[in-house]
């Protein structure tokens, strides 16, 4: 019998009987709800605290709501879910641990900064494709206020953001992945390496992450022996305007012109002219909510047949930043097909 999981090249796996994203849900904050994709999200919370006492609790609630909504939209019951792969941006993964405690489902906590959506969907798909589980979930979240508190300054502290900075998305995306037919097949994954081009500016994360995105996309093309023509869209997570331009250039240097195929979740979720978000949105919630609300919708409607989804993450910490270290980055590729 042919194995379901085939190793491709150095970094990739192909699934011959692919797992499906069977259902998904997105929950966002007010600002995201006012953005260009506002009416596509399943739920927009008017209260940034989501009825909680702290930002961390609020983010946990986001995850819980997204997860519950996604299960509700699928045809399976909560008890059928074997594993959750969850992650967020907070220290010790506070949002996942506290938000999902009541669920009583076996949990793998994952961290890949803003690339966590790609990482969790990769691992979830892998567990289904390998036969380790029939139904699993991938959930990620970020919250503007808790991320500011974790990585920068208290919210009410006054400071200016440079044009290259990004705005952390308040939102959570949840995905039910399983063996039954659904919205999109996960045909394969390309797991990213840590890439560090020595940029130290944490307010220019697009420039830090673009080389990681380039590395993953390039190796994906090598491993699957394909190029950009294979895809209707290549969609990165949160490179923002600066990283987007850099990625196109870096790929050009490697001999691929992805300029006509490339979209970025961070650039789609906000309108920078009216919302003051500078280069775009970022955070684990950015790529996850855009995947759920826009990408999967377009795949379902047949607008896009095949998409390479590449969430990008800047693996900095407040400590590494203070110690003057550069910002290592990572990007995970997931092949989605209608």
């Amino acid at each position, binding site marked *: 019998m042919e194995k379901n999981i085939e190793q491709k090249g150095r970094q990739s796996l192909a699934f011959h009987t692919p797992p499906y994203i069977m259902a998904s849900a997105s929950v966002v904050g007010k600002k995201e709800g006012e953005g260009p994709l506002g009416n596509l999200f399943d739920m927009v919370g008017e209260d940034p605290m989501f009825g909680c*006492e*702290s*930002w961390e609790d609020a983010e946990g609630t986001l995850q819980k709501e997204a997860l519950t909504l996604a299960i509700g939209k699928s045809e399976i019951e909560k008890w059928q879910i074997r594993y959750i792969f969850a992650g967020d941006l907070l220290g010790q993964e506070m949002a996942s641990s506290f938000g999902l405690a009541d669920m009583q489902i076996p949990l793998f906590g994952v961290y890949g900064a803003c690339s966590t959506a790609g990482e969790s969907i990769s691992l979830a798909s892998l567990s289904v494709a390998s036969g380790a589980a029939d139904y699993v979930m991938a959930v990620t979240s970020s919250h503007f206020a808790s991320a500011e*508190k974790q990585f920068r*300054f*208290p*919210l*009410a*502290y*006054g*400071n*200016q*953001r*440079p*044009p*290259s900075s990004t705005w952390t998305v308040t939102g959570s995306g949840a995905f039910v992945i399983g063996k039954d037919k659904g919205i999109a097949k996960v045909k394969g994954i390309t797991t990213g390496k840590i890439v*560090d*081009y*020595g*940029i130290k500016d944490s307010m*220019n994360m697009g*420039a830090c992450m673009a*080389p990681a995105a380039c590395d993953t996309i390039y190796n994906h093309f090598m491993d699957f022996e394909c190029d950009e023509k294979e895809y209707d869209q290549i969609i990165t997570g949160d490179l923002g*305007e*600066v990283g987007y*331009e*850099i990625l196109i*250039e870096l790929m050009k240097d490697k001999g691929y012109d992805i300029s006509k195929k490339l979209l970025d979740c961070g650039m789609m979720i906000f309108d920078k002219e009216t919302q*003051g978000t500078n280069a775009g949105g970022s955070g684990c919630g950015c790529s996850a909510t855009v995947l759920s609300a826009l990408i999967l919708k377009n795949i379902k409607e047949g607008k896009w047949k095949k998409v390479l989804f590449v969430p990008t993450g800047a693996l900095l910490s407040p400590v590494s930043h203070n110690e003057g270290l550069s910002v290592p980055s990572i990007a995970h590729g997931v092949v989605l097909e209608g």
Partner: protein
Amino acid sequence: MNEMQKQKYSEYVEEVTPKTNLICNMAKAFLTGGIICVIGQGILNFCLARGMDKNMAGSWCSMLLVLLSVILTGFNLFSKIVDFGGAGALVPITGFANSVAAPAVEYKTEGQVFGIGCKIFTIAGPVILYGIVTSWVVGLIYWIGKVLGVF
């Protein structure tokens, strides 16, 4: 990736990263800082007119500006003023007040001792520490100078 490639990439990033308009930012900072100073001068003049001496009027001026900044911080409005005016709002005493009040609001959820108590000076701490150290050094120089008869 070697150092030269990193350097090259860094230069390329520098080139493609959009910059803020220095002149425009300076004008906004001048306007914002100017307005704060005018308010301060207004308070000072009012206090002097009420018969206070210069020191007392100065203290009232500082206290009222700090109060104003703390109230605006509490309503999350001060950060919006800084977003527009930058250093114009941060350099006057209003900026210092904001840097103390903002952590107090933020870390309230972590408790009176480990939250507010430990973290209230996370931003203002360096200013206080190095302010005191610098004044100590200057004081020492002044003292030595006095002993030697320079001052």
